[in-house]
């Protein structure tokens, strides 16, 4: 895989961070800690996939957390009754449907993405909460919880699933016409239309995919927690944006890749992990994350691709 200079810088920076953590932070390098770190990193990266896709087309999907909550609660109801496969299917379908609605309103009706996904966030979250009335659904069969709790050798299943999904997404983005058109639409939607590409249809697909990925992340989370709550994913939009931005995905669209996402996930996870291990209260995490975000973007800005335009 050919890496651009920026990707190399990013990789280098992450390596430095990891090395620093290894040396300076006690118990960082232990196997159990690294496994935790890995799990957290991939979970974060997975959550960020939907947001990243919508950012690639110069949009933003704020509804991912809410969609994950609704879809996993609905799926949970089916799963507790033993129908695992059906439940998973229901969850994914609901997520895709929610994303589809976002996409249609944004691409075809020209509703600003902010208004649409923001309102969707309220609507979907409200539906999820109404559905569960604040209670949680728990008690999943082992055939489902293995998704979140089992291991492949020393590697936690979420990492395996996460890696598989991210890998698949990488292939889709780099090797399929859909992925290529997505980058084109993000780079210059007008030029895409003028070149005879179905830009609107692409945008709809992107948001539908975002919803699907959100519900997938939701399923993995509830498998791990063995409980589904309607307040799942409250902070996901913000966490997702953080991972994406650190990973080099630009708000302006058309830039970024999956490797960046993984690195972003790793950075976020490392910061949280170190804060924990150093005995610093969790609150320092947010501060450092904010700092890292600005730093990451500054680095990108200095090695930038396009001239910056105020929003």
């Amino acid at each position, binding site marked *: 895989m050919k890496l651009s200079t920026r990707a190399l810088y990013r990789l280098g920076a992450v390596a430095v961070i990891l090395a620093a953590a290894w040396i300076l932070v006690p118990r960082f390098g232990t196997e159990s800690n690294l496994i935790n770190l890995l799990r957290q990193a991939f979970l974060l990266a997975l959550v960020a996939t939907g947001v990243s896709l919508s950012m690639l087309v110069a949009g933003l999907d704020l509804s991912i957390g809410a969609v994950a909550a609704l879809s996993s609660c609905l799926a949970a109801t089916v799963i507790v009754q033993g129908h695992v496969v059906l439940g998973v299917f229901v969850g994914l379908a609901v997520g895709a449907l929610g994303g589809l609605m976002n996409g249609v309103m944004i691409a075809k009706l020209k509703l600003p993405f902010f208004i649409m996904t923001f309102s969707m966030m309220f609507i979907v979250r409200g539906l999820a909460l109404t559905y569960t009335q604040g209670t949680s659904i728990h008690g999943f069969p082992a055939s489902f919880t293995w998704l979140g709790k089992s291991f492949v050798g020393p590697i936690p299943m979420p990492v395996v699933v996460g890696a598989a999904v991210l890998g698949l997404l990488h292939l889709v983005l780099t090797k399929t016409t859909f992925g290529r058109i997505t980058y084109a639409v993000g780079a210059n939607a007008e030029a895409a239309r003028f070149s005879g590409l179905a830009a609107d249809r692409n945008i709809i697909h992107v948001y539908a995919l975002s919803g699907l990925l959100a519900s997938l992340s939701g399923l993995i989370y509830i498998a791990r927690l063995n409980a589904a709550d309607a307040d799942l994913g409250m902070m996901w939009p913000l966490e997702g944006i953080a991972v994406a931005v650190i990973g080099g995905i630009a708000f302006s669209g058309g830039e970024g890749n999956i490797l960046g996402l993984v690195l972003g996930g790793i950075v976020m996870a490392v910061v949280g992990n170190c804060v924990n291990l150093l005995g610093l209260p969790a609150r320092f995490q947010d*501060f450092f994350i904010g700092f890292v975000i*600005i730093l990451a973007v500054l680095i990108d800005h200095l090695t930038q691709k396009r001239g910056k335009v105020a*929003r």
Partner: protein
Amino acid sequence: MPRLAARLASVVSGPIIICLGMIGVFSLLSENFFSLSNAVNIIRQASVLALVAFGQTFVILLAGIDLSVGAVMGLTSCVTATLMLKAHLAPVLAAAVGVGVAALCGLVNGLVHSFLGLNPFVPTFGMWGMALGAALIITEERVLTGFPATLRVLHDGELLGLPAPLLLVAAVLLVLHTFLKATPQGIATYAIGGNEGAAHLSGIRVRLHKSLIYAFSGFMAGLAGVLFLARSNAAQAIDTIGYEFDSIAAVVVGGTSLMGGKGGVAQTLVGVTLIAMLRNGLNMVGVNLYLQLVFIGVVLILAYVTENQNLVEFLRDLKRRLFGAPASTEEA
């Protein structure tokens, strides 16, 4: 006379109609809704959002955005509470420092955006994290209480029978509205948002102006934080998270354009009222707390559409796009 009628017609926007509609519906469904005490209630609840949304209005008028306000609000309230508890600073002084810190955060946002050329999403989002983190650090993730109640007058107090928050918001609204419409700097704000190049050519110092506007947004967030502190009588870092999105929604729903150059604080007040009234009304009518969120989402979309597009055209467009247009080519 026709000019007055025309101006009235342009002022009565979609969101205002929705507000009036809501008043009608809720009054019918709940006998307690249309009462003075309830109105006072709504005002008290809306006042914090109003202050934040006013600041956000300025930034959006520049075609920018401020994602940090929720966290900055929290930072102010935590700083103020801490200063009162630990440093035993007089409440007013503590509040002043808190607001000053908020303004400083805003200034950093503005400088990074204007002078380094970064998309405003970025510095304000990073600031969000840093402000939240700082607030958590200062409070050691605890809830702070037990400080002098002097500031509570901002929320509980009354003057001439009118609740203090109302007076505060009204006063701020008056000052800001005058600023935007009647001062050179206010006009410059619209100019920059409307056509930055033309504004620059007219001698306006665009970058400086933008930086100061972001500082102002921080300032208003600080003010809102102080009012929030007065209302909740406790300071916790995460309490105010969410206001950033609510403030943006209120501004946009009220009719200020995300593209900049169009809108104002009066319109934002309508947006704030709409959201607050909706929440209050749904409560009164006994709608499930959770279901309320669904209503809010739908109304937001509706308000945006009615403000920015002709509803009839929108529905016609919707129908055409969802159910297809006639065959595009006859033969290919």
